[in-house]
């Protein structure tokens, strides 16, 4: 069977090839290029804004060094007021030491005491507490609380329950009454969470 291409066939093939070429060119080259170009104005405004921000940031470059030094110093000073939390055991020991020294200063005999492990308080602080059960005079209790407040490290009384050993409704007719107070006091020590040195 012979196969002969006539002029009409050649023309059809040529048109088909031309249409295919145009389609491929338009779809994969022209339209993407036009799309890219048409997005250029918005890209320019975005990029200008970004460059403006970058330049503003560069202007601030020199100021940050001093500010950083001051901020580090302030933070270090503030952190010095707190028990260090690098080692929870050491922190617990330090809390007990402070509490015992405060008690010793007012001749308070600490009875039962219970130290809790460090617990997360919020994103910035962990907390360790020591629960104390006391029996002493009001002056000793108040002196103890005053010593706790004056402690070299920041401590706070989380809760306090006090009740007289002998409940009175009126002064005794003669002699003095026993001024003994039973107290349950929980002293807490907030421990700053160490800033993680990330790689940014």
């Amino acid at each position, binding site marked *: 069977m012979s196969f002969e291409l006539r002029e009409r066939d050649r*023309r059809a093939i040529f048109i088909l090839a031309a249409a295919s070429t145009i389609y491929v060119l338009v779809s994969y080259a022209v339209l993407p290029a036009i799309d890219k170009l048409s997005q250029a104005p918005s*890209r320019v405004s975005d990029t200008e804004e970004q460059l403006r921000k970058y330049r503003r940031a560069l202007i601030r470059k020199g100021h940050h060094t001093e*500010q950083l030094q001051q901020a580090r110093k302030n933070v270090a000073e503030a952190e010095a007021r707190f028990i260090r939390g690098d080692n929870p055991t050491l922190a617990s020991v330090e809390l007990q030491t402070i509490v015992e020294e405060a008690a010793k200063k007012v001749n308070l005999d600490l009875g039962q005491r219970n130290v809790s492990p460090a617990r997360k308080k919020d994103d910035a602080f962990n907390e360790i507490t020591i629960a104390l059960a006391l029996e002493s005079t009001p002056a000793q209790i108040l002196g103890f*609380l005053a010593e706790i407040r004056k402690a070299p490290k920041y401590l706070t009384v989380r809760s*306090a329950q006090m*009740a007289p050993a002998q*409940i009175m*409704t009126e002064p005794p007719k003669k002699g003095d009454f026993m001024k003994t107070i039973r107290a349950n006091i929980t002293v807490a020590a907030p421990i700053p969470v160490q800033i993680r040195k990330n790689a*940014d």
Partner: protein
Amino acid sequence: MFFFRKSTGVEIGEEDLTIAVARSTFGKIRLSSVHRLTGFVAMTDEDRRKALQDLLHTNRIPASNVYLSLPRDQGVVRQIQLPADLRRKLPEIIKLQIETLSPWPSAEIYWDFGAEAPKKDHKLVTITIVILPKTYLDPWISFFRSAGLPLSGATLSSVTHGHGICSLWAEETPAIVLHREDSYTEGILISGSRLAAYTGPANDDGVAPKLLVDRLLSAAKLSSSEGARLIVCGKVDDSALENNPRLPLEAAKPESTKDFGSVAAALLPLKDSAFKSNVVPVDLRYRESRRRLIPAFTLGLLATLMGAALLLRDSYQNSVYASQLDGEIRKISPQVKEVAGQEKELDQLSQRYRNLTSQIQNRDYVLESVGELARLLPASAFLASYSCQDGIITISGFAQSASEIQSLLESSPLFRGVEFTTSVTREPSGKDRFSLKMVLEVTK
């Protein structure tokens, strides 16, 4: 390959010259115009040239693709049949036979042939050979070139009419063309790829002279002209054209059939048929070089590119500008990252400092609350319990008047929301037993 093409068909009759202009647009043919130069043959060469040039100039007739149809008696047409297998070798075979077929020596003639398209089950192919003495054609080639209408092709009128019939009507209905001139009538019968032509005397009595038609039918071996398409053209009255079929060309008028010869000549370069032939030697054919289109296409392309460039100029400049900005950003990016790192650290340190100071300021108020209670409560009041947790203080005890205690505590700047937690009871000692709850009003 042309999608837009114009051609000019020229027919030389006994006295007149007719010109038809056709235009092909994607294969669709339109008859643009038809012109007639009356008495052209009788003119001197100079007059002919002038008349033709005037006609060309006045009507802006295209001179790029001109095909001439000469009177049948200036040459001969032969038809032979050859095996279809030899189709590819036809030029060599016919060249060998041309001396036998030509009444003139082969050195003194121009010839060409047309062959029907191959069909299934047809073992033979009909070849139409046109032979023209050089002495007839050369003067016309020279004349038309000098007149500004150089010939691209030429053939005999009978073959031209056959080509016209085959080009315009695809069906193989027999067709008879009667081309009338003052002194003769040329009859052509086309049946498929077969062509019969006969020139008889002019006969004013009938439109289709019976003798001429009978001879054509006899030559074509047809029994009758029943059902055949009949076209009368040439020098005839308009009334004789009424029975002519309308030419299937765009913009063709009913009277266009009168100049069927020139119209058919104009179709020679635009359509293929079994009769398509061109006796003008290849080296004498006028062809417009496609290179002439190069400047036009180049300028067109440049104009398009320039237009596109103008349209896309803003976007392109923006794109370039954005790239420059990107480069600038990349350049300062490391320093900015350093600054951003510093700012981040500063933020973290500030936040930490705020947290630390806030924690320090957020101290307990146990001492203050106990001191305030000692200051406020009257000497007759006795406390049975004190509790302080999460800023809420609860006390219980005995007093002459529980409401007095509530009032005293409420008046303190350290407490607010003082309220009884249980009902107040009167003790046998005559004092009220109370239990109060209050909130520390702490200014942090």
